[in-house]
């Protein structure tokens, strides 16, 4: 493709030129769409076919429409499914709870520090996320200050009782995995929140104040509703990747915290049971799609996505 094929802007003068103009978008699309068809759509088709195959590595796999793989996979791994959704939902809620004040601070209270704070929010990305996730092993380690402080405050006794931690330690417990998930996806919550908060006209706050709204009321009636697009976008950007994640569960959890991503990874790369891995992938997509659809309906912002 050469640059001369690129869009002429003014309406074409002759019918011949008009025909050429009409073809332009297709030429532009051709290479990229072809790429996606071959390396994105075709793989999904292959995976769909793999999920109904039976056989073994030695004898090869064959399409036998063995749909029972789905039922077997679900009945064997539903604890991991439930755990994934539970961990991801908790992490998403925590991201919202932690991220909203920071996004609000940057949008309305930072003044000339705004750019500095924005850079600080993005800065962690500059270090490989695996290295940063490993740093949580140090932070949450058994003899470390965090565990000591939580223990001194009797928090760990409480969380042990709730089943969130175990044996007065944090590493290799659900708490560590959720903490890692929250940490890793927090910027994906903060950035859309900030974008939608920053768009709010400051005069609306003044108007609310002039009409004798208390700060809490002004927030509830003005700021929060106007930031809903950011909340919805941030929630999706956090929840979807967190549900499929297996890195935090692998690095910070134990075998009791394995998520569905861990199962897919080990079925595919270690057990080499491709049909089960494929079926689990589609089940994961179905679960996420269902949850996202319900969420978008409930939040009443269908035009956002």
């Amino acid at each position, binding site marked *: 493709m050469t640059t001369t094929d690129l869009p002429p802007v003014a309406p074409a003068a002759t019918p011949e030129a008009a025909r050429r103009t009409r073809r332009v978008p297709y030429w532009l*699309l051709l290479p990229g769409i072809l790429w996606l068809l071959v390396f994105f759509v075709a793989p999904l088709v292959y995976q769909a076919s793999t999920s109904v195959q039976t056989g073994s590595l030695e004898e090869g796999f064959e399409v036998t429409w063995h749909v029972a793989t789905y039922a077997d996979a679900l009945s064997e791994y539903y604890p991991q499914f439930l755990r994934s959704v539970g961990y991801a939902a908790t992490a998403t809620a925590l991201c919202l709870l932690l991220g909203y004040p920071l996004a609000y601070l940057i949008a309305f209270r930072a003044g000339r520090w705004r750019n500095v704070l924005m850079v600080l929010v993005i800065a962690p990305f500059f270090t490989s996320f*695996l290295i*940063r996730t490993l740093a949580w092993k140090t932070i949450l380690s058994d003899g470390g200050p965090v565990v000591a402080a939580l223990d001194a405050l009797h928090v760990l006794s409480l969380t042990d009782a709730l089943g969130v931690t175990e044996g007065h330690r944090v590493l290799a417990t659900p708490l560590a995995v959720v903490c890692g998930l929250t940490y890793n996806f927090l910027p994906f919550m903060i950035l859309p929140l900030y974008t939608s908060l920053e768009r709010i006209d400051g005069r609306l706050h003044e108007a609310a104040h002039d009409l004798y709204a208390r700060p809490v009321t002004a927030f509830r009636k003005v700021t929060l509703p106007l930031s809903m697009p950011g909340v919805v976008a941030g929630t*999706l950007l956090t929840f979807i990747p967190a549900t499929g994640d297996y890195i935090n569960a692998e690095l910070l959890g134990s075998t009791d915290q394995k998520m569905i991503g861990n199962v897919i*990874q080990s079925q595919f790369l270690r057990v080499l049971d491709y049909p089960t891995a494929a079926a689990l992938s589609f089940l994961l997509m179905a679960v996420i799609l269902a949850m996202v659809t319900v969420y978008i309906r409930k939040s009443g912002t269908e035009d956002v996505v």
Partner: protein
Amino acid sequence: MAPHSRVARALRRNLVVIAGLGTLAYLLLPNVIVTVFSFNKPNGRFNYAWQRFSTDAWTDPCGVADLCGSLSLSLWIALWATVGATVLGTLIAFALARHRFRGRSSVSTLIFLPMAMPEVVMAASLATLFLNMGVSFGFWTVLIAHITFCLSFVVTAVKARVMSMDPRLEQAAQDLYATPLQTFLKVTLPIAAPGIAAGALLSFALSFDDFIITNFNSGSTVTFPMYVWGSAQRGTPVQINVIGTAMFAVAVLCVLVAQLAGRRRKRS
């Protein structure tokens, strides 16, 4: 009770500031730990507990086998993935931003899907394709995988920029007898450039730091994230922290220089 209530009131008024800074601390704490532990001299294979100060790793960053090789491989893959995704993605973005054509909404959906899908699903499906085709895993499969998932992000970044551009600028160029090629090179491209640059930067960062998709499609090829992942089992050399810290410092420096340059340009 008066001073006490004044403190309480100040606290309440600045509650959002305190909470926000707390979140920021949570975000930055691991970076601090990574930096501090790049000066550690651990006993044994794992660099998780502080022992004593040492600059050994800093003076010998490539001192562990395969580490720097994996790093340069990752940079190399990220470079080509960026080139591929930027070219393909920019073309699609122009088509979507500038043209009405049949199948436009299906194309938009096709671009949106890879971003909305959990990475592990995309990773497994692509690996399934390669397995079925009998392609051996390595550099090329990783590169193809990276181009595929970076593509959508480039389209999104470039499309946003082109959409916000005033079409009258191009009409003006044409009224002044510029050929379509001249119009494109002198007007359209310079205006779209920041969007293309943003898409390219994002691609580079996504590709360089990608783990899940690489994990499924790399075979025995070891990129930097794959190296770090493996080291979590084998033992984490301090050099990993050195590279993490250096990357962080270089990136922050780039941002600072860009900010200063921007400010100076604004002033002059």
